[in-house]
């Protein structure tokens, strides 16, 4: 009985890895590791954001500069985030199990917030100052949630 379950378990892992491999490869999951916004656009799911980004105030800023941890200063976080996001995007895309209007996940939103400061840290040094030791205090996105790509 126990052996049987292990067998099933192993089978499931195999199948899962297989699907992962297929979807990740076929759906261009590796594109996620690139810096060129065009690679995001390879999925039609990203068209809306891409089109709006291309017309927006941040068209000189690549998707990854907002949506991934800074590659050079945080290499490990960068890799983990890429793998996580690359995997989920590919899986959801392949299965089609995502809503008409996709929503940013909380931890990815947090990430975007921190990235604002990479570029605009100086500008907001005064307003951040009363809460200098807790970055999360001022939420840029409460006022600027459309900077990347207006809806």
């Amino acid at each position, binding site marked *: 009985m126990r052996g049987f379950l292990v067998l099933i378990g192993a089978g499931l892992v195999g199948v899962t890895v297989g699907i992962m491999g297929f979807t990740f490869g076929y759906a261009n999951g590796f594109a996620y590791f690139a810096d060129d916004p065009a690679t995001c656009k390879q999925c039609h799911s990203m068209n809306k954001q891409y089109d709006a980004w291309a017309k927006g105030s941040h068209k000189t800023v690549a998707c990854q500069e907002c949506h991934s941890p800074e590659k050079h200063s945080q290499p490990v976080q960068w890799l983990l985030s890429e793998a996580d996001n690359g995997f989920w995007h590919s899986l959801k895309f392949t299965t089609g199990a995502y809503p008409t*209007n996709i929503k940013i996940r909380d931890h990815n939103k947090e990430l975007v917030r921190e990235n604002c400061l990479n570029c605009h840290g100086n500008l907001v040094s005064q307003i951040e100052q009363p809460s200098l030791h807790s970055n999360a205090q001022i939420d840029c996105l409460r006022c600027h949630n459309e900077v990347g790509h207006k809806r």
Partner: protein
Amino acid sequence: NIAQRKAESTQPFFQVVQLTETSFDPAEWGKNFPAQYESWAKTAEMPASEQATPPAGDPRAFMAKSKLAADPRLVTMWQGYAFAVEYNEPRGHAYMLLDQQLVKRVQPPFKQPGSCLNCHASVPEVLNAIDPKDPAGAWATMNKMPYADATKLAKHPVTCIDCHDPATMKLRITRPAFVEGIKAYKATQGIANFDPNKDATNNEMRAFVCAQCHVEYYFKGDAKTLVFPWKNGLTANNALDYYDSIGFSDFTQSLTGAKVLKAQHPDYETWAQGIHAKNGVTCADCHMPYTRQGAVKVSDHQVRSPMADEAQINKSCLTCHHQTEAEMKGRVETIQSTWKESSSKSFDALDQLIRDIAAAKAAGNVNPDWIAAAQQWQRKAQFFQDYTVSENSRGFHAPQYALSIVADVTDAARRGQLALRGITEPVTKDPAKDYTPMKATPAPTTAAPATPAPAATPTPIVNPVYSPAAPAPTATP
């Protein structure tokens, strides 16, 4: 799967059949546009929680719930009119023809005209059956026909051909009442001879197609022509002024004898007063949101409540709002419950006015001029209350505006109760100019005088007693 997705995105549809002005059967259109056809057909779906059991002998497996049972104050208000007998929640477009044919309001002793079909059937098909050469003439004929005869010519509820041009698939207006109505309304805005099929923007059309039916209306004269009361504008006040100016009333309220109006589903007019309309957000944005079908987006033709479930809220509201589905649901609930609470209070006021007038008539000792004044207030209060409860969003389409109508109901109804007692209260237009404050003597101090002596001449008199010779108060709601 992905291979299929990639193909879909390049070829959105195949022109399988050639559609014409006599393609009445939606299944034909469905060959070219399967996604739209399938979702259109789904308007026949109905959540179990909204279903009611039909009476014995009714051919329907289930029907919509009774609004009269949910709020019997409607029954009191509509005494003397067919609505007091049956009035239900609306449901999917698939049922519009059937529900109309089976409602008690079209059964004896009630008589209805063919006009009713304008909004409950695929009209091009009916007109074609009457006279394929002369749609205008056929329309006039349909309007005047007894409903029982006219409805035999109808085969479908609203369908593709009612909203789309078969050659170009562009949205189009097929109802003369809307063409006339919107022309009159646009004229109030300084736009002469507006023709929606030529002059409307695509975005306007996304509301106009719905505004052919989801509007307040009346049947004019013996021709029973369907008319929208938009000559003065789209507000409830504008409509009342219009009906007053032509001396129209739908029925005589049998409890009070007042000549009153029936307001029906002013969804479009109410939406037009809200902030969504001001920002170009149309009916289709919320009730027919774009839906991902593989790689393409299509308009969801299963027209229904955007709050139906999480997926629906996501598709409609979250296109523009960066909140969660639960938050959007909460917003709607807050707005609707505020409306519900206030509109229940105003309904009490109207109900109490009606009972008061009935009692006064029964007592027989009340100044007829006072009764006439009270009836005049009832006309306003009842039209406005009906307006707000017949509107289908329970306050959502224009939250602040809906409450201003509710506030007017209470004022009118309570003024009616006072008028019935001989009391006519003024209306202050510009308080800075035409109002004099009443002051106490002596001059006030923080410690208020124990026995204040009111100074100004006390008006009005409390409990005036009826004497036929007394000057009649003017009825000016």
